[in-house]
């Protein structure tokens, strides 16, 4: 199978997994720092009204705010585009003047246009996922075309200029708003569902949260939750379902941490599980669930079950908090609500943990683990890999020798056959060849 065929065979999850693998190391770092921030605030070690909080908050949030830049570089590696041009496009989308202009235009109702004619749809790029992946995909298709049409002499100037111009412009006109449109449609659908069958909403959110996070469309549900909190004093749309989903992903990670045969992956999964318990589940999602596939299905089922329980018991989040264990404080308005919230967490975690163990999973290869953890492979694992590589090399050289022998025999046969044919055509060797052929054939 050629490299191109392999690329064509990559599924959506393989692509997403491939994009997120190299950046998980920063996501998990930032996730843990966010959890540390929340714990320090909860225990009263730092105040939300302090510069320490602002710094620590920045440490955790900056990675997520500038996520499109990390995604751009990783997507470029997957789609075979130029990484730093992709990063430049992401930086363009996050440029403060552009972000502020979008915010302002959206707030006052100003219709943004490009060159006074092309309408620009409002989009929120900080922390977004889908827009930049789509933009880099298009970039990977544009680059070969540009390389074909630009003369070599002007390549170093025109290639970056045209690539940036085309990708940035197509990004803000068409590709960027796609994520917003999906998010808006989703928010409208969830709002309708909440008005019609409210208990179903946490079930759907609990089960589908991994996909909401992948597309970044969970951000579209934030206004719905904020509005509920302002109007009703509680939210039943986003936080209960997402808490179920995060606990489910924690269950996935801990099950993998127990069952995995690779030390480093065990360690990675345990850390991912801890951050998921605190509501930051990206490392579980992109490092465990998506690459191993079966755990993803387990988390969907487990999150759905937990979300269903949250729905039928109508648990209410009284404040907008990161949906993890610390969020339980926001559910403690009355004892019944708190108990049902704890049960939601327990059910989601236990169901997914059990499902992951029962369904099993394929171990990721050592390179993937090394990429996820950002660490060198251990000596033991390295020697195992070296042995495996040597064995593969031996097998390959044996196969090469065999192939060469077959090739030599085939070549000899071709020459003999050609000579025979030539002799027959010339009428020189007919009798001798025929008599000579028979014993050969017998041999």
């Amino acid at each position, binding site marked *: 199978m050629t490299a191109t065929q392999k690329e064509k065979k990559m599924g959506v999850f393989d692509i997403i997994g491939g994009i997120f693998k190299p950046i998980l190391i920063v996501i998990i770092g930032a996730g843990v720092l966010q959890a540390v921030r929340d714990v*320090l605030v909860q225990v009263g*070690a730092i105040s939300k009204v*302090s*510069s320490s*909080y602002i710094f620590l908050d920045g440490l955790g949030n900056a990675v997520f705010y500038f996520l499109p830049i990390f995604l751009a570089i990783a997507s470029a590696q997957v789609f075979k585009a130029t990484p730093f041009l992709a990063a430049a496009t992401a930086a363009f989308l996050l440029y403060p003047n552009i972000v502020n202009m979008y915010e302002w235009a*959206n707030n*006052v*109702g100003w219709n943004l246009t490009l060159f006074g004619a092309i309408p620009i749809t409002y989009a929120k790029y900080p922390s977004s996922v889908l827009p930049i992946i789509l933009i880099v995909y298009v970039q990977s298709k544009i680059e070969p075309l540009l390389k074909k049409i630009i003369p070599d002499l002007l390549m170093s100037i025109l290639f970056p200029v045209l690539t940036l111009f085309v990708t940035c412009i197509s990004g803000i006109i068409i590709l960027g708003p796609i994520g917003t449109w999906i998010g808006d449609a989703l928010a409208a659908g969830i709002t309708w569902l909440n008005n019609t069958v409210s208990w179903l909403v946490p079930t759907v959110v609990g089960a589908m949260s991994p996909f909401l996070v992948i597309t970044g469309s969970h951000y579209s549900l934030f206004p719905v939750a904020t509005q509920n909190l*302002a109007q009703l004093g509680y939210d039943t749309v986003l936080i209960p379902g997402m808490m179920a989903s995060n606990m489910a992903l924690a269950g996935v990670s801990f099950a993998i941490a127990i069952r995995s045969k690779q030390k480093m992956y065990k360690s990675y999964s345990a850390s991912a599980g801890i951050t998921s318990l605190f509501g930051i589940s990206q490392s579980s999602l992109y490092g465990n669930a998506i690459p191993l596939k079966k755990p993803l299905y387990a988390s969907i089922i487990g999150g759905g079950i937990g979300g269903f329980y949250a729905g039928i018991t109508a648990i209410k989040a009284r404040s907008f908090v990161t949906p993890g264990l610390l969020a339980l404080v926001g559910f403690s308005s009355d004892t019944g609500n708190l108990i049902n919230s704890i049960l939601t967490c327990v059910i989601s975690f236990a169901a997914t943990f059990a499902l992951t163990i029962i369904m099993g999973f394929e171990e990721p290869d050592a390179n993937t683990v090394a990429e996820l953890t950002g660490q060198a492979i251990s000596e033991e694992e390295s020697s195992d890999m070296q042995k495996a590589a040597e064995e593969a090399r031996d097998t390959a050289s044996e196969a090469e020798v065999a192939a060469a022998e077959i090739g030599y025999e085939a070549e000899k046969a071709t020459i003999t056959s050609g000579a025979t044919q030539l002799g027959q055509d010339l009428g020189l060797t007919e009798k001798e060849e025929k008599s000579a052929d028979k014993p050969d054939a017998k041999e």
Partner: protein
Amino acid sequence: MKKISIILTVILLFSLVGCSKAEKKEFTSHIPPETAEVGQDIQIDETNHIEITDINIKEFEDSKYVVITYDWTNDSKSAATSDKSFTITASQDDVGLKPNLKVVEDKKKLVTQIEGGETLSGMEQGFALRNEESPVILSIKGKMFSVFIDGKPQSAYPVKVTVELP
């Protein structure tokens, strides 16, 4: 190696906690009022003042809109435009109102640059009403990210103005 990483983590945590208690320098900033009224000069941040001068209801394409008229004073030393200086949003019954500039007289004032010390009068913004009974709450936010209250930073907040509809 394990010991070193544990020690580093502990140092990190202690330094974070220590930092929060080691702040001795007193910082100050303008503290905007939490609420204000129509006709009042509202200083929303260090350099920007807003005064709401008029409230109207307009009908456009079968929908009703509230149009607010205000003056903006740029009290800084340099030229500025409103889009980089403040934001005014509106809500009714805790639901954000959709903005619409088709109902205003001169929307270009929103992007008109004024020099430091100058006032731009008659600026307008329109919002689609949900009903004509409930009051409209305007949220006016300046360009500060945080304000210092008792020397401690806090996220900046918008000034709320409650508007009874005419």
